[in-house]
């Protein structure tokens, strides 16, 4: 299929890049990307991927927009308070770029639905907060063999890396299992600089566009850490762990497991057991 006159103009700053060109822009138009979480990270990811003309964007989030979200979740506006995040985001994307098809899932990602949803997309982006979700996404991306762009943020710091399942280090290679409830504070408890979410989310969007285009060097086997207070970046090399319970030599995780309760919310009763 050929570009319309309008598309040639809309994507002209991409097409003029020798690494992208008309061919690359077509790849972007045919790409299917799933964003898990339409929040602080998901907002800039969704907006930039929509602007770039990613053909199909899936959004999964069960929440409705809350006033306290607006400090960083820039795809949602004041008038969206109380509305489902996936619908609010879908409207903004449609207004930004009608070329994009949005598939909204107003539900939580779970052990039951993860593989089915992941199999409809080519790339997965983790924009979630709680650790059971991050482990579930890591495991499901591994079993579905889908490249995953992982990221986390807290206070003034963020970290991001790309996982090519079976070929590069996975989340469990570094963190074998979720932290016990209450040990790690959430953004809700500890706070987060809104613009930091935008920055890390934009990096995630950049990394997935590189994968789609097949250009550059993916952010695999290294974690990029960003400290906003000091304006410092550090790259920490990581490796596949032969003892990884998911992608190691003798994996003990054979299927997606039902995760325990979200640890992001401090539950005094459960932290007593740990």
């Amino acid at each position, binding site marked *: 299929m050929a570009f319309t006159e309008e598309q040639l103009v809309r994507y002209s700053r991409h097409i003029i890049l020798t690494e992208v060109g008309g061919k690359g822009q077509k790849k972007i138009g045919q790409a299917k990307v799933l964003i898990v*979480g*339409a*929040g*602080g*990270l*998901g907002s800039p990811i969704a907006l930039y991927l929509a602007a770039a003309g990613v053909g199909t964007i899936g959004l999964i*989030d*069960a*929440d409705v927009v*809350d006033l306290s*979200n607006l400090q960083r*979740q820039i795809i949602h506006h004041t008038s969206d308070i109380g509305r489902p*995040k996936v619908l609010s985001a879908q409207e903004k994307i449609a207004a930004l770029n009608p070329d994009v098809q949005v598939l909204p899932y107003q539900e*939580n990602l779970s052990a039951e639905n993860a593989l089915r949803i992941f199999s409809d997309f080519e790339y997965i982006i*983790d*924009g*979630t*907060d*709680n*650790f059971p*979700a*991050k482990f579930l996404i890591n495991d499901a991306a591994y079993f579905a063999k889908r490249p995953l762009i992982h*990221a*986390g*943020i*807290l206070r003034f*710091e*963020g*970290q991001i890396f790309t996982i090519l399942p079976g070929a590069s280090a996975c989340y469990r*290679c*570094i*963190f*074998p299992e979720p*932290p*016990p409830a209450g*040990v*790690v504070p*959430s*953004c*809700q408890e500890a706070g*987060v600089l809104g613009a930091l*979410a935008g920055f*890390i*989310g934009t990096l995630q969007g950049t990394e997935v566009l590189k994968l789609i285009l097949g250009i550059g060097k993916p952010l695999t086997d290294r*974690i990029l850490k960003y400290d906003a207070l000091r304006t410092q970046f*550090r790259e*920490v*090399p*990581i*490796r596949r*762990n032969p*003892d990884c319970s998911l992608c190691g030599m003798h994996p003990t995780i054979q299927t997606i497991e039902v995760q325990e309760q*979200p640890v*992001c*919310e401090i539950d005094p009763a459960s932290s007593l057991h*740990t």
Partner: protein
Amino acid sequence: MRVKINGKQEEIQETNLLDLLKAKNIEPRMVAVEQNAKMVDRSSLMNTRIHEGDEIEFLFFMGGGSETE
């Protein structure tokens, strides 16, 4: 001895990784520890000796993104 912790030169007294975490007030369950670009198993932190010039990296759990209420 002198080691590099998260990219910064530091003078430390501790001789194993678990003691270093304790001295820094870091709960071992909330961090992954790398020594000279190799991940150290949590169960062997106590038995992992620190050597002069080691590069030690603490990788913390980070959530972020969208909150589940």
